[in-house]
């Protein structure tokens, strides 16, 4: 008799479940108080829907009638589908929240989860900076409500580095190399290549330095080419109230080339956990793929990682 579970999946027993529910409740209550309506969508979608949402679903099943179905890999695609169909005639802005299990592939030997419980929001039809600032604010309030104390929200702009490469006239294939290295977090390769592009010294060091630039809002006061390209982030941070702004780390090197992001991207860090707790960003073009062109922003919090970070803070592991 085989009673094992697939790797990367697990049962949740009552003690953990109670804590997890409390955290989930705090997040959802914050979303609701901010005007977000909670929705539920099917675990099963057509694979094409996930692909329209720029995500390949790793788990596919054949239904009893022979149709190919996919386990959803995120909630952004399904909510885009929902907005384009059920809300086709409703005037924006649209505000949705969810707490749902999504299904991911895992790399062996790293203890990754195949099933993630994500709680998040999608805000459709409110452009940057207002929409982005609202999402970051809701994120910050929700984490505080859940009981996380020491977190920061790293905020970057996925369009920043590609625009700088354009501004400085870097050739397409060199751009591809540098963006791959940026996505791969390899500052060594970036600095080497930036130095060999034949650019003037100032431009070369700018391309080498920007990926590692992170810190408080004073970073946004840069001048020159960089300063011009930071206007978008400046307006987002400027729209935050000071309690939220104090949580923000400006991170000019963040480049999650994950499918659909178009502008500001953000990620939650806590000293008590070695990995990010949640992430989000703007996806101003995705809804167009679903036939409902609306600028949008959203985020998802990994509830189990949030739980681990809260537990870590309680254990006083903040030195890690």
């Amino acid at each position, binding site marked *: 008799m085989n009673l094992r579970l697939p790797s990367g999946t697990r049962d949740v027993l009552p003690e953990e479940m109670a804590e997890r529910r409390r955290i989930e409740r705090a997040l959802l209550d914050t979303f609701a108080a901010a005007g977000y309506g909670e929705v539920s969508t099917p675990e099963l979608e057509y694979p094409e829907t996930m692909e329209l949402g720029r995500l390949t679903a790793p788990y596919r099943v054949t239904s009893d009638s022979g149709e190919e179905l996919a386990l959803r890999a995120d909630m952004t695609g399904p909510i885009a589908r929902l907005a384009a169909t059920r809300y086709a005639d409703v005037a924006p802005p649209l505000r949705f929240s969810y707490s749902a299990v999504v299904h991911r592939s895992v790399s062996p030997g790293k203890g990754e989860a195949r099933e993630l419980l994500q709680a998040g929001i999608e805000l459709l039809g409110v452009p940057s900076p207002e929409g982005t600032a609202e999402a970051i604010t809701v994120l910050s309030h929700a984490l505080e409500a859940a009981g996380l104390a020491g977190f920061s929200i790293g905020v970057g702009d996925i369009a920043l580095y590609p625009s700088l490469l354009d501004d400085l006239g870097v050739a397409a294939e060199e751009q591809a190399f540098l963006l791959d290295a940026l996505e791969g977090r390899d*500052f060594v390769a970036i600095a080497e290549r930036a130095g060999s592009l034949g650019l003037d010294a100032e431009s070369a060091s700018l391309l080498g330095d920007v990926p590692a630039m992170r810190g408080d809002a004073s970073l946004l006061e840069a001048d020159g080419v960089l300063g011009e390209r930071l206007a978008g982030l400046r307006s987002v941070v400027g729209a935050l109230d000071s309690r939220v702004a104090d949580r923000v780390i400006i991170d000019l090197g963040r480049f999650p080339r994950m499918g659909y992001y178009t502008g500001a991207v953000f990620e939650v860090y806590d000293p008590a956990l*070695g990995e*990010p707790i949640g992430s989000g960003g703007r996806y101003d073009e995705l809804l167009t793929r679903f036939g409902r062109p609306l600028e949008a922003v959203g985020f998802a919090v990994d509830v189990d990682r949030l739980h681990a970070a809260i537990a870590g803070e309680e254990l006083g592991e903040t030195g*890690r």
Partner: protein
Amino acid sequence: MNRFGLTIAVPRGALLEPSLDLLDRVGIETAQVRGNDRRLLFEDIGVVTMRPSDVPTYVEAGAADVGITGKDVLQESPDRQLFELLDLGFGECRMVVAGVEGEDRGAEALRRLGVVRVATKYPRIAAEHFAGSGRQAEIVKVAGSVELAPLTGLADAIVDLTATGRTLEENGLVVREEIFTATARLIANRVSLRVKSAEVDGLVEAVRTAAG
């Protein structure tokens, strides 16, 4: 804890000496690490020691904020979620394809059998190198003493890291192809990089200065 306020993962083995030399130069007194090759955790100077291939694991999980490891180790697991901050310049080695002296048995196997058997501690690098050059290779993973494989007929060739080439030479092996050159790298955890940005930048600056 050290003056940077960072937990540093330091590799044992060939990279240990030059890594400790570097830490000494940036003001972390490592005499106690040199004096004790069994202890693994040196909390008062914020140093943990481990096999080089485990350094990315500790840094990725945040058990260490930063670490020192070889580019070879990073190439072998490129999907790790960590930042590569600096080329430290020391520990230079070449990743090579090597085989028994004389007739090239790997090429012979490819010509006659269409596939070459390659023994290695670096299955991913080896597989990518052969696939990237359009040759079919059967990768045999071994944990150590890779040089033995072609001598006993386990494999036609090996993919391994060599610094001086002496071990290859003593076992009657010659380098057939060079894949890349690897040096030691300073790597960082993705959360530490953001929430301890001043600390990480302080270390990077000190290391740059120390390296001249």
